[in-house]
């Protein structure tokens, strides 16, 4: 009986843990919905991750230029060489736990990579895609 209980708890934890949502991401996704997002598309987030906008010194910049495409591994800033902790909340539990921080980096990094801010739709897609990594 005790084993069964433990199994149930472990199972429930595993299920709730798959998407790795945090209070911060719940709040942000709700905000994006309030801003008009109706359908979130994680596949679009995945495609956008490697989409480059701005070109700098002949190099096209995308999210993956600094964060890479293996989300379990740390990235490296292409210019300052600063190590960037993994994007996967599984590999990096601190990731996506601070609402202000997420918005700050969306603003900066969309501007750096694409030369403009991201829309609520793009942010919702990115966030949902990344939370599943």
């Amino acid at each position, binding site marked *: 009986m005790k084993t069964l209980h433990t199994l149930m708890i472990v199972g429930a934890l595993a299920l709730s843990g798959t998407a790795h949502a945090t209070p911060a991401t719940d709040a942000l996704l709700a905000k994006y919905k309030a801003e008009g997002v109706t359908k979130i598309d994680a596949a679009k987030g995945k495609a956008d991750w490697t989409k480059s906008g701005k070109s700098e010194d002949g190099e096209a910049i995308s999210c993956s230029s600094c964060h890479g495409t293996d989300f379990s591994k740390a990235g490296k800033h292409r210019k300052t060489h*600063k190590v960037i902790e993994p994007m996967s909340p599984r590999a990096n539990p601190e990731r996506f736990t601070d609402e202000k921080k997420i918005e700050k980096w969306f603003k900066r990094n969309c501007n750096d990579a694409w030369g403009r801010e991201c829309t609520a739709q793009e942010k919702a897609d990115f966030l949902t895609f990344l939370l599943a990594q």
Partner: protein
Amino acid sequence: MKKTTTLLAALAFTLLGSSLAQAEEEGLFESIFGRHKEITPVSNKTYQDECGSCHFAYPPGLLPSKSWEKLLTAQALPDHFGENAELDADTLKEIREYALANAADKSDRKRSRKIALATENIDAPLRITEVRYIKRKHHEIPEKMIKGNKDVKSLSYCDACHTQAKKGVFDADTVRIPNYPDWDDED
């Protein structure tokens, strides 16, 4: 009487022990004479976190206040050497005030004084690597050890070689150049 003496001896020993431990951590010489050499390390958490999330958080004592005045503004930060480094108004106010209060010309540390002197009568440098004193200090290091060194690449990465940079220590004894363990012996 004997008891009191023993107690006093024990107390003296404890006091001596703790100050020795402290001295050992800083280096005995450093703890006595070194306070005013080098650069004041970063002590503001917001400054450390915000600046340090993208690059080595350069201690404000590496540039004069007129430089920080130009660098840390809402107009300048969206194009911070080509990167978007925008900050919200409260955060910017805090790190700007911290940098201005601890700039080279406000510091009594030896290296900061030299930086203040080297930048006194010229336009505010925006890069630490433009400061004449810093340039001169690195002048004799061959290009292959910095620019041509895949683990260094530029003078901007202070902590690539200055192992104690975080503590504000930049003397030659604490330098380890990656891939050039005997850099000091080479001509």
